[in-house]
């Protein structure tokens, strides 16, 4: 019996932060893969809206594992693939201005150090040596992780895309999935307005739209987008080392963060409080005044830098703030890489490798701890501390 020409071993839905690296790793392993993407080119959903921070300094082993592996990939990208993705090992600094933050950060250090992370606590004067432009007023100290960094989400994702194509992956753009044919608990084919494709496995990496894609296969996924606003400035000569994260809650925002990208531009973002649920990505007037004030309070020198552009991106959130990676319990050939909670870019490379190992049934004992924490079948009762 001949297999129809429109048969693919794997169909990935969504050419974004996670789908694109997954396509690369699958193609690299010789899998015949098709990526279906609703918009006209790669990385045009939430990927290009990410600000580019990459860290392993998370609060749980799953994301620490994925973070460490992703940093390994990002930091050797140029050697491995030849592309300059603007990787910069700038580090992350979480600043503490109150005892609450000091306590949270110091407690997290215990977990983080136990997984081999090299971050540490610095009191005010030592932290000011690392970040001299921090406002010393009210500053108690903070953590600094020298091995975290940043890169360009757009360039990284595009590089993965180019190499995936070189290895035989196919990408169909402007071709959203309209329905899926499920038979006996398995997706048999995937339909679009242009064609239909038979497949053995479907991978859902649809980011903010993962729940809608889940519904096409008849399953409900606890992923809903939260809209965060971000902005970028003009470039200036390098003056800031690490990403600065301030987890102090304030009216309108639960935290914010900024760093100097290697182009010299400051990129910044805020976590809205309360959450801005939904997929509205139109800019609001409240963001810039709110974030600007917070940033200048933390780093007065920023007041003269000029803001160039502002935008909004979607954080596909899960109830507990942790990603969902693993096989759907309802549909046996439906692999989920969803609900990355705004960390799809920084966890994308390791996430793509992990999804690939799951497809190939080659996941390791080391993967098991990660997969347990990120399991689609979990109860979603905990709460991520460093979202």
């Amino acid at each position, binding site marked *: 019996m001949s297999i129809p020409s429109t048969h693919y071993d794997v169909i990935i839905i969504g050419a974004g932060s996670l789908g694109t690296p997954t396509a690369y790793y699958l193609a690299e392993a010789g899998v015949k893969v098709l990526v279906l993407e609703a918009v*006209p*080119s*790669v*990385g*045009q959903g939430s990927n*290009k809206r990410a600000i580019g921070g990459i860290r392993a300094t998370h609060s749980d082993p799953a994301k620490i594992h994925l973070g460490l592996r992703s940093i390994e990939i990002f930091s050797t990208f140029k050697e491995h693939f030849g592309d300059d993705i603007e990787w910069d090992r700038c580090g992350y600094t979480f600043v503490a201005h109150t005892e609450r933050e000091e306590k949270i950060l110091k407690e997290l250090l215990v977990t983080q150090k136990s997984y081999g992370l090299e971050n540490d606590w610095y009191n005010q004067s030592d932290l000011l040596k690392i970040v001299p*432009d921090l406002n010393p*007023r009210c500053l108690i100290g903070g953590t600094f992780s020298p091995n975290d960094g940043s890169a360009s989400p*757009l*360039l990284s994702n*595009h590089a993965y895309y180019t190499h995936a194509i070189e290895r035989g992956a196919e990408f169909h*753009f402007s071709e959203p999935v309209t329905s899926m044919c499920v038979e006996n608990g398995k997706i048999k084919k995937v339909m679009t307005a242009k064609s239909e494709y038979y497949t053995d496995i479907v991978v859902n990496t649809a980011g903010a739209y993962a729940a809608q894609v889940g519904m096409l296969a008849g399953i409900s996924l606890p992923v809903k987008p939260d809209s965060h606003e971000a902005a970028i*400035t*003009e*470039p*200036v*000569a390098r*003056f800031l080392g690490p990403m600065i994260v301030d987890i102090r809650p304030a009216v309108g925002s639960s935290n914010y963060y900024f760093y100097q990208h290697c182009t*010299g531009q400051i990129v910044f973002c805020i976590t809205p409080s309360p959450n801005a649920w939904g997929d*509205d990505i*139109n*800019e*609001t*007037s*409240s963001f*810039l*005044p709110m974030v*600007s*004030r917070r*940033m*200048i*309070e933390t780093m*007065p*020198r*920023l*007041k*003269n*830098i*000029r*803001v*160039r*552009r*502002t*935008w909004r991106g979607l954080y596909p959130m899960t109830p507990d703030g942790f990603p969902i990676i693993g096989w759907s319990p309802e549909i046996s050939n439906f692999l989920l890489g969803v609900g990355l909670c705004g960390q799809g870019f920084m966890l994308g490379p390791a996430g793509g490798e992990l999804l690939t190992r799951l497809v190939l049934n080659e996941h390791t004992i080391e993967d098991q701890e990660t997969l347990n924490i990120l399991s689609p079948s979990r109860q979603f009762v905990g709460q991520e501390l460093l979202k």
Partner: protein
Amino acid sequence: MTNHRITTHPILPIPARKTISFNWKGQPLQAMEGETIASALFANGIKVFGYHYKDRSPLGIFCANGQCSQCMVIVDGKPLKSCMEVVTEGMSVIPNNGHPELPPVTGESIFHPIPEINVPILIIGGGPAGLSAAIELGKLGIQVLLVDDKHRLGGKLVLQTHRFFGSADAVYAGTRGIDIATILEKEVSAFPSIEIWLQSTCLAVFSDKKVGILKSGKEYVLIKPDILLVTCGAREKFLAFKGNTLPGVYGAGAFQTLVNRDLVKPSEKLFIVGGGNVGLIAGYHALQAGVGVVGLVEALPECGGYKVHKDKLVRMGVPIYTSHTILSANGEEKVESVSIAKVDEKFVPIPGTEKSYECDALLIAVGLDPVSEFYQKALDFNIPAFIAGDAEEIAEASAAIFSGKIKGLEIAKFMGQNIGDIPAAWYRTGEILKSRPGNVFAEELPDLPVGVIPVFHCSQEIPCDPCSSLCPHGLIIVDKKDIRSVPTFIGNNYCCEVCEKCVAGCPGLAITLVDYRSNPEKPLVSIPYEFSGDVVTKDDIVTILDTEGNSLGDTEIFDIHSIKTSDRTMIIQVETEKEKAPHIAGIRIQTSPITQPMFQYVNHVEDDTIVCRCEHVTAGEIRILIRKGYKDINEIKTVTRACMGACGAKTCASLIRRLFKEEGVPYDKITDPSKRPIFIEVPLGILAGERQEEM
């Protein structure tokens, strides 16, 4: 150091200004109080303001409009756009090479809340359309906030020294643009219901229906309008050619700003690209300012601008090369020459036709794009919005005045004001004012060499009628129902009393009077003339020219005079043979050899055709991607950084679309780059409402 200031001008007064001193790279230089840093540097002959971070190529003025960041300099430690900042006594200015240092700060900040103001109507843009709309609303006592990013109202009218075309009844035709600006400014300022914020740039229209305004360049304010009127005008299109970012390549707006607003001479020898009205008029303005115009290229077989504008320029001695294109701007640090070539019917340069001309500046006037993004956003966010002038549709300023007037009344009606219907004839007039040039007819010449006869060297259908109201006996007729028709003289050879008002008042400088009375064999011809007194004087021998600039021989100037109503237009009289007299339309002003081509064509080998001026992305780089199959400009942006720079894709997006077209990819197959706020770069401190704590 050479002084590059305009010290005499036929139209513009040269104000007495206080001289101040500032430093450039530690050297003391003189500036005029109140002028921008960019103009002060230009006046001192400094045209290179820094070097690009990416390729170290020289940077200078490009837009002179606060839109791009090409003119950035470091002022007392802070990076600033030199075209927007006023020079002050003792200021220390240094070049901006690569990325500037962010200045350190001291002292504590205090934060003021960002003011939020509700207004019934917000008008963005105080040019001809915005002012005209505001006037209509002001007459009805309706509250309006009008914001404009410049230091005075009028938009681009303030740069237009020539008399306007259009309808004398409807839109001040016959009056100079600079004077229309003053009239409208005065009128709008008289209405108590209209509040005006100058130097106030609209930054964004947000989805929560608020509009962010950078008030007076230093305070961030959010306006919540019930109705938004967008009259932001247009931005200039740019052109891809080799050497197109060399200092000395300007948009027409930048050139006119330097010359007509700041009275600075940015060039001695100018070459113009583009034969639309903007390029033709800019050429005329250049000549008036004492700048030599080497030539003008137009890719089409005919100039797109009004024939009278073209004829005027040709008569001044400026060669116009139609069916020609620019190949390159050449030079090391700044423009030193231009290379052009003839094109075939597909606009491809024909080998062997290349020529080069010495020049020190290139003026690019290849069309305009509407600045309509705020209107689009308002529609997206369900804010009741109107649009008028060039922001709606590119046309002459006269059309913008009229469309603003109509939109003002439409807004009043929308608000429920009982003002009756807007006459249908107004919409027709609006359309007529927007119309492109029409048919060209043969010139009508006097049939009998007796008496006095006006000759109209105006043979093309254009919307213009001032001449019809100039004749005290009402003998010049333009069809009032359609002012595009050419004028006719309904008197006979004995009606004209030689008041010369038509000669002095025609915006196209296209009416002459042939006076056969004293000597039918050698009649006296009155010709309009708008140059400073020192260009030609009585008894000089000048070359007389027909409408299209062909020489009719040399003759002596019989008289130069002005008439009471002439408003700075002079009248030259020459005496000449009766066969030539009716054909005379002007005298040659520019006789210098600067229009001669160089001995050898300058072949510009380096492929430095820049598409994205901010990030210095070349056309070659983008063509490679298009040939690879890229169709989403966002993807081109990802890979090249084109569209990511300071200007916000204002310049490159249309050039990239054009490259797609040239590569055979139709527009409906490509995806435009995402449009994102904010309109210009603004310091974080201003957005935060930050002030330094008072000591």
